[in-house]
């Protein structure tokens, strides 16, 4: 299967080099030089994942991410030149599934994309937690009978937690299983996603009743 990647980056040389290197990793890469162009193309064409540089001329990278996230759950990886916590968190809050910082290597990026697109485990039974119903093979979550829209990453995060049946899942396990991270435990990536997930499934996100924090270790779902 060939994975289609849309690369949104204003620096033409980076775009070219990354396209070449990602092609070597067996991806089909399309390029867009600006946010506007990317959004235009995404209206008609379909891609498996979008890479968005946060510093774009014209339409801001964050704006692109927000617009795309509003449209659906297409996996998005943001590329930042800065590693400041603020930029990374802003990108993730806007709806990105993951982030990489420059200078990024195609091999690392490829691993990220593959982790993001990894198929869900074979048909698990539907899980009920309180008024939440998760149907893994359909990829659907209902809360009190109403459909909740989760991104693919949020869904997998929820599934990992639900699959543990109330046992603690460590931060490392979550990072490894959901994002394929095995190095440099990143607190921000997980924290922001947990926050996003809570906003969607908790009655009161500030006082979570379903996704509970286990201080210093990880998270667990209320069983």
């Amino acid at each position, binding site marked *: 299967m060939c994975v289609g990647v849309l690369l949104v980056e204003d620096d033409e040389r980076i775009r070219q080099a990354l396209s070449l*290197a990602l092609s070597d990793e067996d991806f089909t890469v399309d390029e867009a030089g600006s946010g506007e162009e990317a959004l235009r193309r995404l209206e008609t064409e379909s891609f498996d994942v979008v890479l968005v540089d946060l510093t774009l001329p014209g339409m801001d990278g964050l704006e692109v991410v927000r617009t795309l996230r509003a449209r659906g759950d297409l996996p998005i990886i943001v590329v930042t030149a800065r590693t400041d916590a603020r930029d990374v968190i802003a990108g993730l809050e806007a709806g990105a599934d993951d982030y990489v910082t420059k200078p990024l290597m195609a091999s690392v990026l490829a691993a990220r994309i593959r982790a993001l697109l990894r198929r869900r485990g074979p048909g698990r039974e539907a899980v009920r937690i309180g008024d939440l119903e998760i149907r893994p093979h359909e990829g659907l979550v209902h809360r009190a009978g109403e459909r909740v829209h989760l991104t693919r990453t949020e869904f997998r995060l929820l599934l990992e937690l639900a699959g543990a049946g109330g046992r603690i899942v*460590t931060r*490392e396990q979550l990072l490894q299983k959901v994002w394929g991270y095995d190095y440099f435990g990143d607190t921000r990536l997980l924290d922001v996603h947990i926050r996003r997930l809570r906003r969607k499934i908790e009655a009161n996100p500030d006082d979570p009743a379903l996704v509970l924090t286990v201080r210093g270790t990880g998270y667990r779902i209320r069983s």
Partner: protein
Amino acid sequence: MRLTLRCRVTLSFGFGLLVVTSVLALATWNLASGYMLRQREASATRQAEVNVRLVEKSLSSPGLDELLTGLTTGPDSSILVLSPDGLVTAGRKVEPSQLPAELVERPPGQARITVGGLPVIAVTRPVAGNAVYVELFPLQQLDRTFGFLSAVLIAGTISSALLGAALGSWASKRALKPLAELSSAAGRIAGGDLRARLPDQDDPDLAALAAKFNSTAQALEQRALRDARFASDVSHELRSPLTTMVNAGAVLRRRREHLPGTAGTALELLTSEVDRFARMVVDLLEISRLDQTDDYEPDELDLSALVRHVVATRWRAVPVSALPVRVQGDRRRLDRVLANLMENAERHAGGAIFVAVRQDGTTARVEVEDDGPGVPEALREQIFERFARGRPGSRGDDTGSGLGLALVREHVHRHRGRVWVEDRFPRGARFVVELPAITKS
């Protein structure tokens, strides 16, 4: 040994006050005791003269004895009448031989003497031609008063000297307080905290000093920030071209077999140096970010789990002995610390052979051991410096950024911990990281 300024001020205040109050006390003593003595003498003389007239009238009558007994004023006073017919005495028993001869032989006279162990005022008067009247007035009462007075004066002098010393100590402390603040602020700056400032001073003498100090510190901080920002800007600007280079390099490396001979070797050189360059820029950015911003995000975590996790990701073969230790730390930074130590061992000593985590009282200890050539004593501090190529002979094939151990040290310091390297028996080096542990009370 030279005494401290505070000590000297305290001593001179104490001594000064001691001198002043002693002079005052002495003067008081002289004036008061002289005055009281004169009063006593005058009253004794008046008394004696009245008595003499009474004695004169009944000198030859037989009632002289009784009269004299009536005239004595107390058990300690005595009256003697010496006449050619004999001696008549009353009151305390005193022999004429106990009195100074000059006083008895040439009346009238008066003197302060000690008779039979008692201080007295002796007054002599001639009576009826050839007899002598002698009366002794005891001074015990006055002596007791003098004793009390001198005790009061001495106590006053000593306590005022002590008060002076206390005052001196307090005053010098107050006067030197801005200096102590200055010293502590200067110490903090020397220790690397460029945000240390002196509080505003009300005193015009000190305000200028404080303002000068603060503006110097401000300039120093600005400059350090500017330097850090420059390093950060440079490495930031290098990121875009590096992204292109690294990825173009990866594409070329995949086609290595199409470039035989010289071109292939050159390609390998080029791509490996580009990779190293990329690592350097990333590390440089991280270290300059540490210099100018603080995104330390502490969290309570189990150090042993973190260490096991990092080792398991890339160094699965290295044995780990880790007991649970909870510390307050930033995961990303601690991950980085351990990974850098492991990479360092890999680069210079053929890889770590043992990793341990344990708790020593209130400190958590992480040890990374290798059996490489070890680190010579002289280089043990130096290898934690930025761009310090620690081990001799390794420069040629060194692929590190030169910042790995410097980053380790910065991160460990940020956690209020220490890191050092020591010898391992029988060979190799042991890198030790100590962090404050959370101890459950």
